[in-house]
């Protein structure tokens, strides 16, 4: 059915292109920023680095989403929740790192806790002064949420739109919770005013350049990991679940565990993306949990091309570039454009922009691209309208 090659350089031409461009970015950005003098037109400002860093983080989120949606047919409308949780874990470390340099100068408590008149650190804030602990939490917290939520959902066979709706409710509930001041996560304002990470100044161009390189490496590594998964034998089962869930179950595969582990892995990638996002952007607040963020991430994947991995990343970068440009130049137009993108892509471009490129391989069967299983399409053919 799917004929991705076993070696990436061999058959996965899109992936090879993607990794090549990523490497180029990882090399060019520091060079353009540090070696090219600020007077030159080729100089990349700190803002530019942060912007590219942001795109790459969004690309990672799109990758995570494509892994479950494009290959397993699980449409999560709450994936930004994992992204935000990873971001919050990193934000907690960065808040502790501020130490006595905050406005109130309290060596232990972050500013917002002093402001709320708290006397001691809540239990879940302990340990976040160690980077390694925080890094572990960046992986563990989204993974745990994905595990618990996925276990409940997949075990009771919540599928299709039902799954989409409850993931949306999940991220909405989390948003409401994080908005509360007494949750201990800074309420409305979230975390900001970070000073440094592991002793490196977060306001220097050098730190940003290094963070960008790390993001690029993380994105490349996640891509290779996802590619390895989908090309493995397990990947075939995963695609079989997407195309005919019941049939796969009847063939004896433990469908629920495949879905669950894939969902957890996807949540972890999203969490890491969020953790890389926060130090580069400099703020994390509950609006990251907003349901619209998750839906926007879905449209990146749809625009780029579902079930291709690199397409999703390309979609994330392109849509966000358009967003940066349009919200700056024509703020009125952005929502119209985004709305039209949703409509046009679903209506006319089921394979995304990658589908427009000439390709020798019929990569994914049409039915899968239309987001329905064979079983469903058989039914809808039966109920065909005209």
């Amino acid at each position, binding site marked *: 059915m799917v004929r991705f090659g076993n070696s990436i350089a061999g058959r996965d031409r899109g992936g090879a292109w993607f990794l090549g461009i990523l490497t180029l970015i990882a090399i060019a950005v520091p060079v353009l920023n540090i070696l090219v003098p600020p007077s030159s037109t080729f100089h990349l400002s700190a803002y530019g680095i942060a912007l590219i860093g942001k795109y790459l983080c969004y690309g990672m989120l799109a990758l995570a989403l494509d892994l479950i949606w494009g290959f397993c047919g699980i449409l999560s409308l709450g994936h930004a929740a994992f992204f935000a949780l990873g971001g919050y874990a990193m934000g907690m470390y960065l808040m502790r790192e501020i130490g006595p340099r905050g406005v109130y100068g309290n060596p232990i408590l972050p500013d917002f806790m002093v402001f709320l008149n708290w006397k001691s650190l809540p239990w879940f804030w302990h340990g976040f002064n160690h980077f390694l602990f925080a890094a572990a939490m960046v992986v563990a917290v989204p993974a745990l949420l994905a595990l618990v939520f996925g276990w*409940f959902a997949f075990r009771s066979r919540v599928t299709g739109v039902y799954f989409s709706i409850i993931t949306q*409710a999940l991220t909405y*509930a989390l948003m*409401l919770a994080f908005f509360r001041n007494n949750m201990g996560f800074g309420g409305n304002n979230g975390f900001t005013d970070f000073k440094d990470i592991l002793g490196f100044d977060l306001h220097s161009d050098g730190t940003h350049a290094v963070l960008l390189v790390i993001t690029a490496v993380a994105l490349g590594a996640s891509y290779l990991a996802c590619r390895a998964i989908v090309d493995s034998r397990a990947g075939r089962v995963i695609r079989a679940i997407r195309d005919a869930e019941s049939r796969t179950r009847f063939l004896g595969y433990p469908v629920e565990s495949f879905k669950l582990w894939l969902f957890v892995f996807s949540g972890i990638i999203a969490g890491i993306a969020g953790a890389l996002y926060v130090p580069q952007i400099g703020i994390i607040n509950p609006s990251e949990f907003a349901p619209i963020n998750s*839906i926007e991430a879905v449209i990146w994947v749809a625009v780029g091309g579902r079930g291709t991995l690199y397409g999703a990343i390309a979609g994330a970068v392109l849509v966000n570039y358009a967003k940066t440009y349009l919200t700056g130049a024509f703020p*009125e137009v952005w*929502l119209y454009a985004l709305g039209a993108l949703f409509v046009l892509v679903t209506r006319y471009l089921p394979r995304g922009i990658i589908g427009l490129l000439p390709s020798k391989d019929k990569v994914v069967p049409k039915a899968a691209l239309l*987001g329905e299983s064979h079983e469903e399409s058989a039914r809808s053919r039966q109920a065909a309208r005209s």
Partner: protein
Amino acid sequence: MIRFPRGGQRFFGPLLLLGALFAAHAQSPKDANFLSTLGELREATYSGKAGIVERLGQSGHPSVRAVLTALLEERLYYRNSDQKVFIAKSADSDPLNLIDPLSLKNSGSAPAANLTQIGTNNALRRVVRMAVARFGLSSPSASVRLDAAREMLKSLDDPTVALLRERLGVERNSSVRKEIATGLALAALDSPDTKTRLAAISTLKGGLSQDVRNRLALLLDKSSDGAFIEKDENVRRAAASAVAAIDRWRTFYSGFQTLFFGLSLGSVLVLIAIGLAITFGVMGVINMAHGELMMLGAYTTYAVQLAMPGHTGISILLAIPAAFIVSGLTGIAMERTIIRHLYGRPLETLLATFGVSLILQQSVRSIFTALNRSVITPDWMSGSLRLNDAIEITYNRLYVVIFTLLVFSLILAVLKRTRVGLDIRAVSQNRAMAKAMGIRTDWVDAMTFGLGSGIAGVAGVALSQLTNVGPNLGQSYIIDSFMVVVFGGVGNLWGSLIGGMSMGIVNELLEPYAGAVLAKIFVLVALILFIQARPRGLFPQAGRAAEDK
């Protein structure tokens, strides 16, 4: 105590009418006297003003009540140029609309800068309130008398008690009598006679008001030296049982009130979900633009109100069909251009309709700006219905419950009793068979989607009375409405009704313990868990129709 000239208070009502008739004529000596007393208010100290208020009350002039009410509400002004005293219609507007204090007729308007407000303080306001209440007690309207009696209960002194006793003899209205009796009993609690106190307690026992309860509870307190304030043990025992009785009833009624609040919140949920129950439930289409169709309905209300200023009440009623048409046509347009091509692909429809929702939001933003618009609530919808001392129900909550039930039964009637409804049900149960029977399924799809969207618009009219009308109105309700439909069971209108109502009640029950936001989070989490247990909702569709979905 006020003594009215020529006869008691009961003649005051007719007197007021007579006074109004004469007011149009030239100033009588009584008018002149009244005006000069009124004029003294300009310069007097607060304590001096209290004396003037008493004298105004004794003057028996027909305008006294209006003037004193205005003073109480800080709407009494004098003109800087000629020192003449005026009542302002409302204190907020500028220029102020003036009313002549003698004739109580409009007398033009003047910029607020040219007028000086006659100030009050707390002590003065108490005096004025009492004076107004005394007038109210002799009003011809029973509801005014009731309010006046309640007001007097708040500060009982000897003259008040004497006045109440006098009124008890002439009062015919049973609820006013009850209020007066309560007042007298409260006063009787201070009596030195044990029997009188016991009798008072037994009168008060049947009451519900918090003030009465607190007053009775005082009898059980100990003074600082450890001795009971109330010496007699029987009285104490009676007071304790009366307090317990009142508490029991108040708890019962507050439970009742919570239930009603839950029902009204649930009604809102049902109203916003029911259109979705049709498009999602009957057609299997995930319409993420449902919230925006509600927003369109709310903006239609705003536009209708703007088009007919001064007719708030009628404009709301007209807005209902208008919103149905606007949202319904938008829905049909959506169905014909986009959704039609995506049937059988629910996840695609979800994304495409989300795109439509963004476009609708932004177009509203372009037309009406991003600012919230205020829709005026008609008079008959503001205020509240007071059932007894423990329950007060605001009219807008009451109306939303009634409105929801009306809309719900109307939809049921359309689905069960009309030809279109028959077609809709046939197509939703078995599309191929319905088509074979000659039903134009295309047309039915468009009608169904239009119906669901139109109802979203109607829900928007109701929402415009309850929340801010802004471009984000829809977004804040879409998740709730999906949860109601999924909870109730897709494709089941009754399920949505029961689901929405129970979600509303649970939310209100949790709110006192957890706070509004946490209660909402609990409900969401509970629903997420519930869906795990029953993935098809409370009332799942059974049979082949369900499997074809």
